[in-house]
């Protein structure tokens, strides 16, 4: 596919990184030559220095033959205008990153009137991901499938978990639950476990299950499952705003701490139900005053990565709060993953993931039928949702009789409003929505999970 990416900032860079491994023809446009060359020096993309809203620049980038244009500059209006110009010139789909909350209510209008396929707000996307964690604190991360009925929950095995030393084939018998373990991350290794897999301390496990079964599972292994009752958000940026809004809607009490009085004024106007504190979030006294020790949720969302990391480490030390750490830069991930930071949110990766999902599922419709795509374990494992077609080679055969490729797992089958966590006897039928977890290879069709 021919893809043009306008804007070579953090999101643009991550997108090129993700897309260049998938055999697309990538052209990047940015006004700053050094940003362009940072991408073209290390990755297989063509760079053009120029302004993305310039018609000539877009022509030079090959807009006439492009299939998709992604506008991810730092400027909302530029992104929108770029998409409109691209739409008028070529026949491509367009995706715009739009950050200003002003446009938030008008997403549908913009999409329809400007012909934009997808409008992504990175702050809103990050806030949505964090809200999921606070609603289900046992998990590090929650992904939903089949319109929210099935969840893929990631959690870390603590040092006194009853799962320690247990073999996977004993899991459901011992605990009388029906959850399916999808992936395990041990240090830097990713495993799609089989029955002989043994749980170790610090493994990050992901399970596929319905919400009800998952709650039961977490109760049995002795981890708290209730949605948090209150949350402290350090930093009052856009993510905090969206997060507070959605948490308040769920009846969670929110305290936002921000150092800028003007911003606090604004937040106080916009969020009448939240407690807005004007002060330094790194002040230990202030945090104690606001009841960090008794907080159930804590999110470090300031503009500084280092500050966020310290805040989360401190919150984990003094309280039992579920913590979320926002990290903007993607450096030193291996070290950061080993720290006790709770859930880590990389806004640009979330944005890139949302876009990648769109690229793979919608625009790939000519030779793929991926409904949804999730990247797990730092993007190395993919969870894909498919609808089974009438003549599919995998339909109607019990899973144990299918000759599946290595590192493949059928996680769940969603049929007639019912979720099946499959065993070897279950089979996929036409019309089912299925979730497949794969590692080490790529597929665009469900039939590709079979060994040739």
């Amino acid at each position: 596919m021919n893809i043009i990416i306008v804007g070579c900032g953090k999101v643009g860079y991550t997108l090129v990184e993700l897309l260049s491994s998938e055999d697309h023809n990538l052209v990047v446009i940015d006004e700053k030559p050094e940003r362009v060359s940072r991408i073209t020096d290390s990755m297989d993309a063509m760079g053009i220095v120029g302004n993305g809203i310039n018609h000539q620049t877009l022509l030079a980038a090959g807009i006439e033959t492009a299939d998709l244009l992604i506008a991810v500059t730092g400027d909302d209006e530029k992104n929108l205008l770029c998409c409109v110009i691209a739409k008028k010139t070529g026949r491509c789909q367009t995706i715009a990153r739009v950050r200003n909350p002003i446009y938030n209510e008008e997403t549908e209008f913009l999409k329809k009137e400007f012909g934009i396929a997808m409008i992504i707000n990175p702050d809103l996307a990050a806030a949505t991901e964090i809200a999921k964690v606070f609603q289900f604190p046992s998990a590090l991360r929650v992904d939903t499938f089949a319109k929210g009925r099935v969840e893929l929950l990631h959690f870390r095995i603590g040092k006194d978990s009853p799962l320690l030393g247990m073999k996977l084939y004993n899991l459901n018998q011992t605990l009388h639950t029906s959850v399916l373990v999808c992936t395990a991350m041990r240090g830097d290794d990713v495993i799609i476990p089989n029955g002989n897999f043994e749980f170790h301390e610090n493994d990050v496990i992901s399970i596929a299950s319905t919400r009800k079964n998952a709650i039961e599972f977490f109760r049995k292994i002795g981890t708290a499952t209730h949605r948090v009752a209150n949350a402290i958000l350090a930093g009052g940026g856009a993510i905090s705003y969206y997060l507070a809004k959605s948490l308040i809607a769920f009846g969670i009490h929110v305290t936002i701490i921000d150092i800028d009085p003007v911003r606090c004024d604004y937040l106080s106007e916009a969020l009448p139900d939240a407690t807005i504190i004007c002060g330094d979030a790194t002040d230990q006294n202030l945090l104690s005053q606001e009841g960090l020790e008794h907080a159930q949720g804590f999110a470090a969302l300031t503009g500084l990565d280092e500050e966020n990391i310290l805040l989360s480490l401190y919150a984990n030390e003094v309280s039992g709060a579920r913590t979320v750490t926002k990290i903007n830069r993607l450096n030193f991930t291996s070290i950061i993953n080993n720290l006790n930071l709770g859930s880590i949110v990389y806004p640009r990766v979330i944005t890139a993931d949302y876009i990648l999902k769109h690229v793979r599922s919608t625009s790939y419709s000519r030779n793929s039928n991926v409904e949804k795509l999730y990247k797990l374990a730092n993007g190395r494992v993919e969870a894909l949702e498919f609808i089974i077609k009438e003549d599919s080679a995998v339909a109607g055969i019990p899973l144990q009789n299918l000759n599946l490729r290595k590192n493949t797992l059928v996680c769940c089958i969603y049929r007639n409003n019912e979720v099946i966590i499959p065993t070897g006897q279950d089979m996929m039928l036409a019309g089912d929505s299925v979730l497949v977890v794969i590692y080490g290879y790529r597929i665009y069709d469900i039939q590709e999970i079979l060994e040739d």
Partner: protein
Amino acid sequence: MNYYIILYILGCVLKFESAFLLLPFIVGLLYHESAAYSYLVTAALCFLIGMLLSSKKPASKNLFIREGFVTVASSWMVMSIFGALPFVISGDIPSYVDALFETISGFTTTGSSILNDVEALSRTGLFWRSFTHWVGGMGVLVFIMAILPLMGGSTMNLMKAESTGPSISKLVPHVKDTAKILYGMYIALTLCEIAMLCLFKMPIYDALITTFGTVGTGGFGIYNSSIGGYSPQIQVIVTIFLVLSGINYTAYFYILSFKFKEAFQIEEVRWYFIIFFVSVGIITFNIRSIYSTFGESLRHAAFQVASIITTAGFATTDFDLWPQLSKTILVIIMIIGSCSGSTAGGMKISRVVMLMKTIRKELSLIVHPREVRKIRMDGHVLDHETLRNTNVFFVVYFVILLASTLLISIDNFDFTTNFTATVATLNNIGPGLAMVGPTRNFSIYSPFSKFVLMFNMLAGRLELFPIVVMLLPSTWKRK
């Protein structure tokens, strides 16, 4: 420094060289020459060592600009070291230093020879000698990139090191596709010339050899008289294809994608033609008394200018006997060379144009000290990096030029000979003037001087920096 990936790529290069060596083997079989088997032996040796080196995939695929430069420079050295073996084994060129000189001269598309009598060489040897031009013209790593699924985007660093010109840009988003398009155009140009030459009754073997020397801008021939023995029509065809080979390949890409306006707007190509026609005009006028008709002097002038500006180094006549004005013009266009992004050598016209524009800017700054003025090429503002790089290139170029002239002067030949020998090798032209003129050769030099000239040829082909950076001790430190 990621030594593993360098060794891995060197392995790939050797495997490709062994495939290339099979061609002269086939030619040798066709002509029933025993020399053929020396090529088979070398091919087998290259394949074995290549397999050994590339058997283990490197764990880290980091290929930074440093690794890119070292890989390219060492690939060219390794190719030449092995490519010289068959000449020695078959006995065509008994001395290994001479064989190495000849091979490096081939791969770098220089065309300087140490052979007193070219016609004494076996057909097989002559074929390999010229085929190295063709391989070296567009570059062997570009060829490998077009075929092998190498390691993603950082291979751009290999292309940067191997392609000619101050700023290398892709034609299409993928490195692999860019390499394919470049070789596609190169092969098309090659086939066109072979067809044209055959049409005008050149034997197929001669046509192949001449074409390799033309499109690769090398200049090895199979006769002592170079192209002089062929009919005037053939000389005209070779002239035309020489001129075509000196054009920036980006121009062809624009024409193929129907962007005629862009193609004719390339400033460098316009200067190329201006320099070409002005030089031809002056020389034709200058040598009119030597030849019987105006047509003949025009033909010789055009051929010689085309041959020298594209740094091929063919000859239809002994231009060493021309008047001083003509000879000086030839030496100047030797140094200027052709367009960047072509197979030719020299400093490249784009660099010269940039330097001229820099001079104008500096002069203008004396008149208006507070003026802000940007230097443009093709309407785009050039960034500081490119300009600085070009200035440094110019300095390095002259340092090497003077240093090697100094070094080879130990052999005690006259200044014209030494200076033009250095110019001819550093710019990948081939023949110089006086004792290294078109009818003479480089066998007069001592082995030490030959090594200096070999260094010049490699440095010239790879545009100085990849070779020079090999001399820097910190390049080799493990980090």
